[in-house]
């Protein structure tokens, strides 16, 4: 065998691709992970500017369960990848909030806090909230046909106060809804469990620690990782993928291909496909305004882990109608405000990160000079909008950075810089070819834990079972 023939080729060295790679290499497959970018992580990557470490995607890891928990996606991924709970050094959140005009619902990793907040602010809705809790679908019971039901319809059949519906949707859409305005009910159940019933956590060292663990394990098991190796096309013969041709002309062959590039993006790579279903491409992309403070954020009055805000009673989950961004809704997160172990101390600087909805096309059209100007302008407008809901921290700011849909596109290669990928998910991971499969964002799970579980389950279902 030469070094150009593999059992499985994986496209993309993000969380899902690396996790799938570990599973397959553990069971002695020859695996190659191909990454277009010069660094790993995809959406969940990291970078260093002016001597400071920044994370790209990570605000929080959702799906947090305490050490010893035997159920849930975190427990499953630890077992499947043979990690210990302590390997990820997860610290739980300090406490978060959903803030709308004149009303705030606090929540943390214990659902009882959210429940009591709803009982206080929405006394007529609490029995209905309990009904929703009992009707959520389990992770393992999600079927494609139940998945695509309208969440707004389901919630309108349970709650009678529309404001509570908007407030519950706000964090769940922000952290994982690829569709505009409404959400697939399957996705709602996944997000509800992962955020409200499980919870937020973060490793002190950020996403680096998780990626380092994954890459080290993958390499120890003999897996190949090729950076700056963009796939030019997937070579197709009939209904079968033969391998890939890289942008530099190198040809690799494999028994099967697992792609985390996204459903539309993967179809476009196939040498046989002339028509690509572009309607599935997601439209939702973001800018992220990062503030570095001269103190820990709680000294500046920001003591929450995450605040999801919206400036009116109706939640605006739609791409901007006419401008580069829409800052009427946003998410503020401080990586400092987690309950880190005392031995770790405080993070090197105070950080507040803020995400706002952006328009991909308008950001891409800007020339270099206006791009830089608009970054500064939208940093100002977004932080200004936030001060309606959190203490004004701006006089503490000593450095800023903004990343845009252009940045997201560079890290993820997703069309439109769509952070949560396609609007229609492919839960079983299959494609029109009999040995090409999808994993990652477009298979259905989002977030770090979700992406890892996606890689694991697609590797198990499509790349390991066939060998049994």
């Amino acid at each position, binding site marked *: 065998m030469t070094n150009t023939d593999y059992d499985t080729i994986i496209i993309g060295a993000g969380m899902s691709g690396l996790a799938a790679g570990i599973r397959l290499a553990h*069971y*002695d497959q020859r695996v190659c992970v191909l990454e277009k970018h010069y660094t790993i992580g995809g959406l969940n990557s990291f970078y260093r500017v002016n001597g400071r470490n920044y994370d790209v995607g990570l605000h929080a890891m959702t799906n947090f369960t305490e*050490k*010893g928990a*035997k*159920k849930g996606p975190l427990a*499953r991924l*630890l*077992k*499947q990848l*043979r*990690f*210990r*709970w302590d390997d990820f050094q997860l610290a739980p959140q300090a406490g978060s909030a959903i803030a709308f005009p004149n009303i705030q619902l606090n929540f943390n990793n214990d659902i009882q806090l959210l429940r009591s907040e709803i009982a206080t602010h929405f006394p007529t809705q609490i029995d209905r909230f309990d009904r929703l809790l009992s009707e959520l679908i389990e992770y*393992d019971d999600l079927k494609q046909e139940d998945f695509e039901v309208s969440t707004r319809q389901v919630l309108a059949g349970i709650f009678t106060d529309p404001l509570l519906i908007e407030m519950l949707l706000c964090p769940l859409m922000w952290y994982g809804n690829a569709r505009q305005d409404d959400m697939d009910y399957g996705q709602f159940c996944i997000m509800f469990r992962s955020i409200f019933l499980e919870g937020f956590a973060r490793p002190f060292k950020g996403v680096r620690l998780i990626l380092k663990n994954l890459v080290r394990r993958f390499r120890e098991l003999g897996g190949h990782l090729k950076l700056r190796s963009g796939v030019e096309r997937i070579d197709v013969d009939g209904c079968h993928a033969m391998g890939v041709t890289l942008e530099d002309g190198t040809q690799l062959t494999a028994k099967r291909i697992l792609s985390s590039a996204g459903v539309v993006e993967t179809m476009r790579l196939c040498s046989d496909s002339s028509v690509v279903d572009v309607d599935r491409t997601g439209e939702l992309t973001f800018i992220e305004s990062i503030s570095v403070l001269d103190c820990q954020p709680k000294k500046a009055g920001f003591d929450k882990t995450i605040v999801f805000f919206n400036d009116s009673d109706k939640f605006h989950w739609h791409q901007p109608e006419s401008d580069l961004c829409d800052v009427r809704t946003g998410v503020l997160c401080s990586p400092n405000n987690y309950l880190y172990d005392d031995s770790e101390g405080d993070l090197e600087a105070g950080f507040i990160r803020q995400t706002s909805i952006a328009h991909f096309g308008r950001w891409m059209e800007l020339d270099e000079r206006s791009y830089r100007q608009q970054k500064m302008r939208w940093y100002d407008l977004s932080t200004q909008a936030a001060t309606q809901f959190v203490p004004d921290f701006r006089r503490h700011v000593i450095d800023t950075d903004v990343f845009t849909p252009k940045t997201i596109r560079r890290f993820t290669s997703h069309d439109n810089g769509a952070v949560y990928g396609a609007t229609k998910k492919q839960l079983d991971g299959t494609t029109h070819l009999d040995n090409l499969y999808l994993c990652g964002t477009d298979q259905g799970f989002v977030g770090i834990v979700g992406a890892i579980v996606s890689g*694991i*389950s697609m590797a*198990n279902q499509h790349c*390991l*079972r066939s060998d*049994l």
Partner: protein
Amino acid sequence: MTPAEIRDEILDILSEIAPDEDLSDLEDAKSFREQMELDSMDFLDIVMELRKRHRVQIPEDEYTNLASMASTVSYLEPKMKDIIKA
């Protein structure tokens, strides 16, 4: 392998799959599912580890034999008796 050696091997696989789990008080007659809350993905892993380590093949319709330690050892005994413990 003797039944005792097979039992040790299964314990080793379980401790690799669930390193945070205390296996010292595992009861052989009680199901893994009940004691460790193993799910179908975990059972598939036990099967795959046995294949990887010892080339033991277990058909899918026989996975039910892996319910508890006692049933697993007695099911594997004829399949593994000729394997020399490394």
